[in-house]
């Protein structure tokens, strides 16, 4: 039996490994994130009052639960390796002892759980509503597999629509109304707030606020079909002046430059693309796809999948189904001249 | 405890009333079927409370026929109970008569319910209310039909003289099921016909 016991030491070793894994979790997490990667890492980074209290909550929970884990692991290891007086293996221990273990263990656990529950509820109330009235309201509608964004305004002429890229001014709460055009999606900008489902027929909403300028990645988190993986977006938090500039630019219709090439491209677009896409200021008013009026102003295309370069645009238009299999945009069959005309036209959409 | 236990007493053999496995089995079956109806009615109340539609779309339901039908079903339960009592008292003829009456009343319920279905202006697919109405009453109808088949078998067995006052477990068990079908109807009735009057 002693032989077994020595082998069982491994058990303790593995437990220690766990313990270090948990403690290592935070630094590893940090190391990954500091390199500029892990754009969804909410555990170490948060930039607004809708997310920061939750981040602290997460830290306290992880720390406390890690301690609990370690205590229990030590108790278990102790229970296994505790020295025992040699006894006849046939004897059987008494049944009625050991109850204090349960009383004390459960009692202490219950107190900790009570405290944790209170802390969680307090945090929930803190993040449930912004302290000030939202300065900006937008409606985000989930589509398979992209996002339509409508900026609201009391004056209907000042409303505008864009896609896959949300701009917000820093330091103010923003109310986001959530809708779905087809199935359930979920809106999530982890560094700014938690997620909320977008359920057809239901008017959900949430709020978020960015206290630092920057670009925050968002992602759909409810399984919504084959391209659920590639249903991302970005939130660009700007200082109020830049935001105002951006808004003014977005409100304008597309500026129409006219050269032979561009006109050919425009005609092509109206023929082939306008059934789905809108370009304000042209006859293209399709409603099934992202608004392309200010396409070139966006950083990414195809719901966060590609950077918005000319090559990527061409590649996307001609090979959408290879890049994002199942996407609701067909791979367009275009000749080289058509491509260059279309590119010329699209490059005017800024 | 072993020594306190009486091990040498005579025990009934086989299927003896509420000691039989069947009685226990049907009891548990009823619990699960009861939950099924619970979830159905939950769905009804959930959708009714969430809907923006006019509810019920055709206005408040008429209570006359469904009310009458409820009474018929309850009466039928009473006669099943009476039939069992008669067996206990060795009044086999009365038992037979009572069971026949119960069966007839059950069939009346089905006929009236079928007529109720046929005069509705909506169907299962015309709107949300229709889907709920026909699914809930349809589920219940299915149970009534199973119950009627059971009653028919009991009737047959009583007629063939299979039971006496010591052994009639099948009647107890079958009756239990029939009472369940009736009690569930009360909930269905209250939900579909009475609750719209409350709001």
């Amino acid at each position, binding site marked *: 039996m002693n032989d077994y016991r020595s*082998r069982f030491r491994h058990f303790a070793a593995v*437990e220690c490994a*766990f313990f270090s894994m948990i403690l290592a*979790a935070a630094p590893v*997490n940090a190391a*990954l*994130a500091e390199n500029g990667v*892990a754009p969804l890492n909410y555990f170490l980074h948060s930039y607004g009052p809708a997310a920061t209290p*939750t981040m602290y909550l*997460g830290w306290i*929970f992880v720390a406390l639960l890690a301690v609990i*884990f370690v205590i229990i*692991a030590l108790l278990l290891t*102790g*229970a*296994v390796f505790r020295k*025992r007086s040699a*006894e006849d293996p*046939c004897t059987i221990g*008494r*049944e009625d002892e*050991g109850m204090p273990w*349960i009383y*004390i*263990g*459960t009692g202490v656990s219950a107190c900790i759980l009570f405290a944790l529950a209170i802390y*969680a509820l307090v*945090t*929930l109330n803190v993040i449930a509503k912004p302290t000030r009235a939202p300065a900006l309201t937008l409606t985000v509608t989930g589509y398979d597999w992209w996002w339509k964004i409508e900026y609201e305004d009391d004056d209907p002429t000042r409303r505008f629509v864009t896609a896959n890229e949300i701009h917000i001014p820093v330091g103010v709460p923003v109310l986001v109304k959530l809708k779905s055009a*087809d199935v*359930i999606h979920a809106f999530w900008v*982890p560094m700014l707030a938690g997620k909320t489902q977008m359920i057809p027929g*239901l008017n959900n909403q949430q709020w978020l606020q960015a206290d630092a300028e920057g670009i925050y990645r968002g992602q759909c988190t*409810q*399984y919504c*079909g*084959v*391209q659920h993986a590639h249903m991302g977006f970005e939130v660009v938090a700007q200082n109020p002046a830049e935001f105002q500039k951006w808004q003014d630019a977005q409100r304008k219709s597309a500026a129409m430059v006219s050269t032979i090439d561009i006109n050919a491209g425009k005609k092509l677009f109206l023929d082939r693309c306008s059934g789905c896409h809108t370009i304000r200021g042209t006859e293209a008013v399709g409603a099934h796809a992202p608004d392309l009026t200010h396409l070139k102003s966006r950083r990414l295309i195809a719901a966060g999948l590609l950077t918005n370069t000319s090559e990527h645009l061409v590649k996307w238009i001609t090979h959408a189904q290879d890049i994002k299999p*199942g996407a609701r945009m067909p791979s367009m069959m275009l000749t080289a001249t058509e491509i260059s005309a279309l590119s010329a036209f699209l490059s005017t959409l800024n | 405890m*072993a020594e306190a*236990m009486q091990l040498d007493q*005579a*025990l009934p053999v*086989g299927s003896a009333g509420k*000691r*039989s496995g069947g009685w*226990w*089995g049907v009891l548990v079956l009823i619990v*699960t079927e009861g*939950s099924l109806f619970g979830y159905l009615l939950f*769905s009804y109340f*959930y*959708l009714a409370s969430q809907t923006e*539609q006019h509810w019920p779309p055709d206005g408040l339901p008429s209570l006359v026929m469904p009310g009458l039908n409820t009474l018929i079903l309850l009466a039928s339960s009473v006669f099943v109970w009476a039939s069992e009592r008669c067996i206990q008292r060795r009044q086999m003829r009365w038992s037979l008569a009572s069971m026949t009456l119960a069966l007839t009343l059950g069939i009346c319920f089905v006929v009236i319910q079928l007529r109720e279905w046929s005069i509705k202006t909506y169907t299962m697919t015309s709107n*949300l209310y229709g*889907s*709920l109405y026909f699914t809930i009453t349809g589920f219940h109808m299915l149970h009534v039909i199973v119950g009627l088949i059971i009653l028919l078998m009991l009737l047959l067995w009583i007629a063939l003289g299979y039971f*006496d006052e*010591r*052994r009639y477990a099948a009647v107890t068990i079958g009756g239990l099921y029939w009472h369940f079908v009736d009690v569930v109807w009360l909930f269905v009735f209250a939900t579909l016909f009475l609750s719209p009057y409350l709001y």
Partner: protein
Amino acid sequence: MTDVVQSSPDLSLRRVPEIGSAPIGSAAEIRLAQLWESAPGWRGWLSTVDHKAIGLRYLVTAFIFLLMGGIEALIMRLQLARPDQVLLTPEQYSQLFTMHGVTMIFLYSLPILSGFSNYLWPLMLGSRDMAFPRLNALSYWIFLFAGIFLYASFPLGEAPNAGWFNYVPFAGLEYNTGPNIDVYALGMVLLGISTTVGSVNFVVTLFRMRAPGMSINRVPILVWGTLTASVANIFAIPSVSLAFFLLWLDRQIGTHFFDVVNGGKPLLWQHLFWMFGHPWVYAVVLPAMGIVSDALPTFCRRPLVGYSAVALSTMATMLLGFGVWIHHMFAAGLPTLALSFFGAASMVISIPSAVAVFAWIATIWLGRPVFNTPFLFFAGFVILFVIGGLSGVMTAAVPLDFQLNETYFVVAHLHYVLLGINVFPVVGGIYYWFPKFFGRMMNETLGKWSFWVMFIGFNLGFFPMHLAGLLGMPRRIYTYAPNMGWNAVNMVTSVGSFIFAAGILIFLVNILISLKRGALATPNPWDAPTLEWAVASPPPAYNFAVIPFVASRHPLWEGRLDEGGGRSSLEQGYLLMEGREAIGTTPLDAEPDIILKMPDDSYAPFFLGLFSALAFAGLLLHWRDFTVLMAVACSLSLMAWMWPRKALVQRVADSKYNKGAAHG
């Protein structure tokens, strides 16, 4: 009283059971064997209603499903090992994770526990069979056919593809036009029948089929676990069956329950699904926790600490488990007040778990552990349960769950609890009861290897999933970009998964080797306390030659454990052999109440199961006439089932009986 005895007493209605003994080889024993053994060959194989045969079938079938689900998972892990892989198409990936979840949750985790309980219950309770042996057979056959049904469309590339919780409207006809979801919906209704029938059987068995003296406070914890799970199933299964049935109506008939355009509500699905789903996750662990509570003490050489507390905590967990379903819907936009309530309730549910955890630790602490393979699995289980439970507490904190929901953190949680509390005890349980099942011991060296490889592989594979979740990796994505910071964690997870699979493989090899060459097992090789170890390994068809009288919780340790009270009597007891007979006892005190006539073997369950599965197939394929035909065939099988039962109506031929006797 006198007139009873004078003329021929009506033995078919009432008798005093004979007390005696029936040692192996005695005339009585041979007669019992004749009565209870199934016919040899395929006839017996198809018609048997022996709970031991059915239990083993459940175990083997469910384990095969574990392997299938596991292979699906390994394929997923290959795809996810590195970013931007193109091994699988998105559609293939969605069918893989859905079938993986469906297989593991529905076709593996509960059926495997039903297997244990089916095999062990009558042996632990001192009974000759379950309350309804034929229903038991039916429950197995329907399970098997429902499993085949759910898998039938997989090779065609039309398997369920909306995740195991199958949210509408994605699962509705508009967005999912193929047969995929219909297969899932019908398959689940069919499987629901099997589970319900099985649960009814367990509940009635517990209340009626215990040996005299096996009062409710003496039954093993596994029995408590399965009883609790079965009662929960009785209440919860209708919810999911109804949900899937309504979905099927929506898809095939055109009703509007979930149809947004016509006022239907997608949230109704979420409610119905999780009102079932949460109780279910406890249903698939409580019996497994029972396995540990019963088997761990054997290796600690002492009884479980706090038997009553653990039994009560089992029930408390389940009771609370019905009140927390909203914690799967924290992100659905429900009112904050509701979230607070359900979040707090989800934390409270940890308290009964704490009771169990401390009871196990105390049992080890106060005992003198013997480090056999099963012990390693059970001790390992405790630590995995704690990790899985603690991550559950994190998701129960509502604001935190707004972040964790639908990320790999939840995937990590569910694997720690499902593998930690289900797979580890199950594998440990197989090591423990293998000698009882097959009369041979399993190999210890391979056993230790399998444990360590599984344990290390599991933690290597699944612990990093927590990190992936904290790094924001959503679940159900078929691939990811290299710049998300998820490359390392995913690679480690994939490697760990394969190491874990290797551990399972070692376990399988061990089974195959031990079946052939394992050392022969005595009836009680581990010196365990409970009744199943009182019979031969493997047990005879009739289980107990005489129905034992039980006087304590640990009948086989009585001599060494001074529990007070009398001594159990295992050699002397009721000799019931007028046909297949068993004793029915009162629900709480287990006093003898009735002599039950047990049914003979029958093909009816097999055919009823087969025809009902075919009827469902007809529904799926819209073969109207075929469906009707199969429904008729079902009725015929039912009649065949009931036919010989005419005896149960028990008409009294000529009335010679005691008027004073209480009638039944």
